[in-house]
């Protein structure tokens, strides 16, 4: 399977180390989510992949070969800093960009028709970009990334500034592209969206890949939690189950941490033995928690309560 390899990139800006051995791969046909705090190095990585910046060390490869100009023209790119000619008409602008990417004039015109139609800005083809609302400008920006039928998609914060309808359109487009065999790499701070959409996720910290894999892979090693409410039970009923530890209690409700591979049914039996069970839910840590845990440096021991507790509590109640 073809893959986009980001092979140990290093980049310094003066004294600032922007990328420090950044490495990951995105496979054809998958959506790869790129998350990390501001300044972690996501944009720099994407710019280097596009050849807009040069790396100090390391290489970006597609299908085993270093990215050259020919391949780069096959990438669909949405820069973090949105940019279009404000006084150029939407249609002309998209045709121009498509042709810069090597499309013939008729092919470019056809692609413009197709994508403006699909992204809901077909009626604005003859308007100057500056006359469009910000949301519609975003749609044109996405059209600009897709107009030349890219073989690779690299999108920096494609969802920022989109209304919910546009988010759905965008998600659909990204999924279709991935299904058509295109590797889709995008960065986002909307972690719920990343969790829902991405096949694999890379979490960046300080210019390095802190964790990378499917959401399930990222979860492994972290413990699942159980929310159990047993009416009128002794406070320490859970002690009968080996390996389980208490995270917090709230009235009759206990938040328990379950070691990897432990059987939650054992806990349920112990709870039933202790009294009537009002609530029993297994809770998998959301990406937000994994992310928090990783980007705050992992200084605290696993399951450190201060960061993760509120989120788990909230999730537990709603479960």
């Amino acid at each position: 399977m073809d893959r986009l390899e980001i092979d140990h990139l290093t980049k310094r800006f003066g004294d600032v180390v922007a990328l420090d051995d950044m490495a990951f791969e995105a496979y054809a046909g998958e959506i790869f989510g790129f998350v990390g705090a501001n300044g972690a190095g996501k944009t720099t990585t994407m710019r280097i992949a596009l050849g807009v910046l040069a790396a100090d060390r390391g290489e970006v490869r597609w299908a085993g070969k270093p990215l050259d100009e020919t391949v780069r023209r096959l990438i669909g790119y949405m820069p973090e800093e949105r940019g279009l000619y404000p006084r150029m008409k939407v249609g002309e602008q998209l045709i121009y960009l498509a042709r810069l990417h090597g499309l013939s004039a008729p092919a470019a015109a056809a692609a413009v028709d197709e994508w403006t139609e699909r992204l809901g800005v077909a009626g604005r083809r003859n308007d100057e970009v500056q006359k469009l609302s910000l949301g519609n400008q975003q749609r044109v920006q996405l059209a600009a990334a897709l107009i030349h039928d890219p073989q690779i998609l690299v999108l920096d914060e494609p969802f920022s500034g989109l209304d919910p309808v546009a988010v759905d359109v965008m998600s659909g487009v990204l999924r279709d592209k991935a299904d058509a065999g295109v590797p889709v790499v995008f960065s986002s701070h909307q972690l719920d969206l990343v969790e829902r959409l991405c096949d694999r996720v890379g979490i960046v910290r300080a210019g390095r890949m802190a964790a990378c894999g499917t959401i399930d892979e990222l979860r492994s090693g972290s413990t699942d939690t159980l929310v159990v409410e047993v009416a009128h039970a002794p406070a320490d009923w859970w002690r009968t189950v080996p390996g389980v530890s208490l995270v917090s209690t709230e009235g009759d409700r206990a938040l328990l941490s379950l070691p990897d591979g432990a059987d939650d049914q054992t806990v349920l039996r112990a709870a039933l033995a202790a009294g009537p069970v009002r609530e029993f839910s297994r809770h998998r840590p959301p990406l937000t928690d994994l992310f928090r845990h990783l980007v705050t440096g992992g200084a605290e021991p696993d399951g450190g309560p201060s960061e993760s507790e509120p989120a788990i509590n909230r999730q537990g109640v709603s479960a």
Partner: protein
Amino acid sequence: MNPNPWKAVGLVANREISTRLRNKAFIVTTLATVVILAALAILVSLLGGKDKPFTVGVTSSTSALATPLEASAKSLDIKVDTRTVDESAGRDQVAAGKLSALLVGDGSTVHVVVHKSLDQKLGNALHVLAGNLALQQQVTSLGGDPAAVRAAIASASVTTDVITPPHKYNAENLVIGIIAGILIYMSLMLNGQAVAQGVVEEKSSRVVELLLAAVRPWQLMAGKVAGIGVVGLIQMVVVGGVGVAVGLATGALSISASAAAGTVIWLVVWFLLGFLMYALAFAAVAALVSRQEDVNGVVAPVLMFVIVGYVLGVSILPSDPGNGTLAVMSMIPTFAPTLMPMRLAMGGVPAWQALIAVVGTAAMIPLLVWASGRIYRNAVMRSGARIKLRDAWSPV
């Protein structure tokens, strides 16, 4: 698949051309320049660019003065036709403006009837006539032969040996030179600044990142300079061509058609050389800033060369076209594009001077392609505060 790098340059240039040709300010400026030039030419021809001959009436008693009047007018480069009329009819024609003046009296003195005032030029001719008449009368009364005296005066002349004959500038060439200077100055300012503004527009709108994901920086810069250059060239040919054509057609210009064509060709050559040189410099310095309001500050040093050459040229050359300092400056590449076309239109430029200026300026262009390309490449992706030239030259 190996994309032809010049195809991208062509696409960029094409966008610049179509954008600029539809730019209202550009269209208005070009049309206004054409109209002003044409109006100027028509005005010149109407205001007596060609001298209308004076028609002077003579009566039967003054008809002997007709031939001497025409002769003395001719010696002053004034055209005078004479017509013999009846005195009372002549007075009516003077009042009606059909005659410039009517010679009356018995022919022994010069006595004219005019409508409101005597035209100064015609007055000069009549003055000479009166002098000659008096002289003739005195010679006759002294017993001499007026014809022999006249012949002797006519043949008397000053013999001059000139060591270095100076170029004889005529007023028309000086005017053409000034107009050439104004045109090339305007064109360099407008189109050069358009390059600078275009570079910053791409930076400030951030579209440059999207473009550089598809094309190399040099392609973007070359396409922009080439596109705006083509538009400037069209503008120059149209304005210069229309100006000369109207000038020749209305008679405002009396230089030969080939000399006029030469002037336009030199204008085009110097526009191309000057535009390429300044536009490359403009593109490089403009890449240092990210906001339109910073453009003026950063292009000012480059602009100074254009302005200094032009201002010195239009203020000194018309009165002193052979000025030695300006002759030297017109051979220095930074000033040549404004000064040399003015001097060439005024005439009298030795071929070697024109050659030095052309070769020198042409040699600057590859140098600037290299230097500006380097600055542009390093600066164009860095947005935010103004970048120091030194940092753009060798980034940290």
